[in-house]
């Protein structure tokens, strides 16, 4: 099996601040990789670099064997293949749910409006939101908004999904509906790179768990080993603090 997404010694600076200090990471096709680690460790930045919302200063990112970082990359084409869902949903507030989902398929893929609506119909049906297609995002709950945001990314039929702490801004009772959807996607074989604080979720869906600390990969391994028997002292400290906060 070829490595679908490959990060090779990736460095990222914000001014003088080195946020990613040589990260190398591979994601196979149909794998779900969960990034865990304390706030500010570089999880979000890493995701944003993968679909070129941030530029990297050193190293290389490859998607399906092709270089997708640095100069000469067709960013719009890359982003069609790589969907991202943000912590703060970022739905377009001036558009209805349906328009949010059909915008990119009609404008970027140049789908006919009716084809885009068919595609959106199937996706919104799946999350039980077709009846709400004419509502505006502000009228929806956080959980509904985030599920629409996931569907909006799926409407582009991406080959890789990046999820950036997608449940962190949700009220606790709304987390499950979003995680259930992501779990389904994982079972269907969607390749995903997920930054998350939900350790139980990571243990359930991840093929591999990566502990990121101060911009470097401290430790990576299968979820069972990572959560039961972490090798690194830092990983142990981090997981202990999560357990003490009753979040695991």
């Amino acid at each position: 099996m070829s490595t679908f997404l490959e990060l090779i010694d990736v460095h990222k600076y914000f001014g003088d601040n080195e946020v990613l200090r040589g990260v190398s990471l591979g994601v196979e096709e149909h794998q779900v990789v969960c990034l865990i680690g304390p706030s500010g460790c570089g999880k979000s930045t890493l995701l944003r670099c993968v679909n070129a919302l941030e530029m990297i200063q050193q190293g290389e990112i490859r998607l399906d064997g092709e270089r997708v970082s640095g100069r000469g990359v067709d960013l719009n084409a890359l982003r069609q293949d790589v969907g991202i869902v943000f912590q703060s949903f970022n739905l377009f507030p001036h558009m209805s749910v349906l328009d949010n989902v059909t915008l990119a398929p009609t404008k970027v893929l140049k789908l006919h409006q009716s084809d885009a609506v068919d595609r959106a119909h199937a996706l919104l049906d799946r999350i039980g939101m077709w009846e709400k297609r004419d509502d505006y995002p502000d009228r929806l709950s956080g959980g509904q908004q985030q599920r629409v945001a996931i569907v909006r990314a799926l409407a582009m039929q991406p080959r890789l999904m990046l999820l950036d702490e997608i449940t962190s801004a949700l009220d606790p009772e709304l987390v499950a509906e979003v995680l259930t959807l992501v779990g389904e996607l994982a079972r269907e074989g969607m390749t995903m790179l997920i930054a998350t604080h939900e350790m139980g979720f990571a243990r359930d869906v991840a093929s591999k768990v990566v502990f990121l600390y101060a911009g470097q990969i401290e430790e990576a391994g299968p979820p069972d080993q990572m959560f039961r028997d972490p090798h690194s002292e830092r990983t142990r400290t981090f997981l202990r603090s999560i357990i003490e906060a009753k979040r695991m």
Partner: protein
Amino acid sequence: MSAVVSSSVTPPGGQRRKVSRFNSGLTRALIAEVGAVILTVFTWAGLRTFQNSLEIGAPGPQIALGIEIALGLLVLIVPAYGARAIVRSRQARHLAFERRILDARAAAEDSRDDVLWVVGLGLVAAIVANGTFFLAGHHARVRSVLFNWDLIWRFRVALFHGFVWNVKLFLVAEVLVLVWALFVAVIRQLPGRAFGPIRVIAIVYADVFRGIPTIIVIYLIVFGFPLAGVEPFASHMSPNTQLFWLGTLSLVLVYGAYVAEVYRSGLEGVHWSQSAAARSLGLSQWQTLRHVVIPQAVRRILPPLLNDFVALQKDTALVGLVGLAEILNISSILKSQTFNLSPVTGAAAFFLIVTIPFTRLVDYLIKRDKARTQAG
């Protein structure tokens, strides 16, 4: 004079608890009532003077008397509230003597409410009274020189024909400003060093035209262009057409600079995460601007944008100063003919007929958009 009763309540525990002193507010109510009566008499005097002025100056319309009588009766509400304040305050005092302290306080609060009504409505009455004295002043000359209804009515058609020019000016200018200012604003937003020089030009343009008085821009362009033979304004245009297009150009240049700034603040006000979300879906920079950023920016700039439009509508009168036969120019000719400024007042009324509904419409649109896209 005010009833101050010290009271205390015995709680179930048996211990006496000191309670703040009770004030029925009778002094306050009495002062309010005295003021209200004086104000009423003053207003009646104003209305009477005004009625007299109608007889010595230019005759006013018959409904004037009716309005005066109605106002004279309405002003009686002020002392009525004052009287009720006194009654309620006395009730409060009795209740306090009966140790019904909560009822007493409630009555005192009612009395205080009445006093607030006296103050609020009293201010309105004072404005009406002063207005009538002002209009009736100088042997009714203020009223007859500035507000001669007969003159306004007689010249209504001439004024209307002038105002058609103003409407044409602001309609054409507003459409052009919308496009031109967006163009300037987008140029200012262009990223990268390649666009540095053109960004500087956009900034200089905005600074220059916001810094020069509109009337000077109009002078320079409307007088200067034909004198310098600038095509296509120099030839084969009727004088009014030429003035119209040069005036429009001046207004577009000035208001384009203002509105470009409004657009810019709107574009910058759309959170970058919206662009990130759009770009992450594969939309190009231009598509992101077109479908995500500009629609949201326009919604948030609607109030300041339409403020500028109201200002533009009013500034169309400046083009009259350089010769266009618009409403200020027409009314100014009529002023010289009649030695009376009432036609100018009529011109002012024409502007209000347009600007006030326009402002209301804008408020309505903003409210509707909010109701549509935002939760309860």
